[in-house]
């Protein structure tokens, strides 16, 4: 696997988690609709929202990482002398 491959894989993972996030966004925890006064069910609603927000943070993190990895691969390719790093282009 090359560093370019890793960037591609990270893009795939970010897309998968974004799909999860979008499904959490679309599928609101309907069982609690209309019953906000029930503490237990309100906690489910909050846990659902926290899960959606966690997914959003993971997506953002992986996308940023994919960008950094892609940039590193581009830099490695752009220079003649690889410096101290090894194994970046097997």
């Amino acid at each position, binding site marked *: 696997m090359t560093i370019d491959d*890793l960037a591609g894989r990270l893009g795939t993972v970010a897309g998968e988690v974004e799909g999860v996030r979008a499904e959490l966004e679309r599928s609101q925890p309907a069982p609690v609709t209309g019953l906000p006064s029930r503490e237990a069910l309100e906690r489910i609603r909050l846990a659902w929202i926290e899960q959606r927000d966690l997914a959003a943070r993971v997506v953002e993190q992986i996308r940023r990482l994919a960008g*950094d990895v892609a940039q590193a691969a581009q830099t490695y390719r752009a220079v003649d002398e690889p410096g101290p790093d090894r194994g970046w282009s097997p």
Partner: protein
Amino acid sequence: MVAVSDPLGRLRQEAARLLAVVDETLARCGAPDHHPIWPLLRAVGLLPGDAVTEVVALSLEAFRERADLLRSHHERCAGVGDLVRAPSGWEGAAAEAAGAQLESARAGLGMLAAHAGVLASLLADLAEWAGQGRGRLARTLAKVLTSAQAVELTLDDTEPGARAQAAADIGAQVLAEVAAFWEGGGEIVRDRLARLEPEPAQRGRLPDAPAAGRIVVEF
């Protein structure tokens, strides 16, 4: 979605008239002092008819659908974790920074998968709890529909004190079942959600933890 195909859904229609009389009598006449219905009214916060309507309106299918969705999220997030690994043999400062960030990303994915699994289990358990609770409430409604108190409430010549007593007796039986229903669900939620807390070892590696060093290629 209101389920009408199970015993509670069918009995609810039969019981609606009686419960309307119970609610109206309690609202108009109150209940005898020290009757067991008083703490139940405070605990549930609704008159018996409204309390039953709330339970009837709870959709088991909605719980099940969301449990299935979260189960699929668990599998998808766990499945992609292995893709988040650095190429073997990559060494240097950039590789080290990437390794730290990849570890953090795997921790985030792992937590997402774990939480999805816990929530899926919670919602599946709630569907089962709701189904069992609906069955118990249906049996309670069947019991009060055929009770002597129900007869008292349907007779025109029942004196007001006896009507209040009958309404309170029926209301107490119904509310006790509803209170147990909500308490049972609350216990499941409290127990399962306690498992969502991140373990101390995981907290420092979550996506919102301080970012690992940037990946910088040095020459």
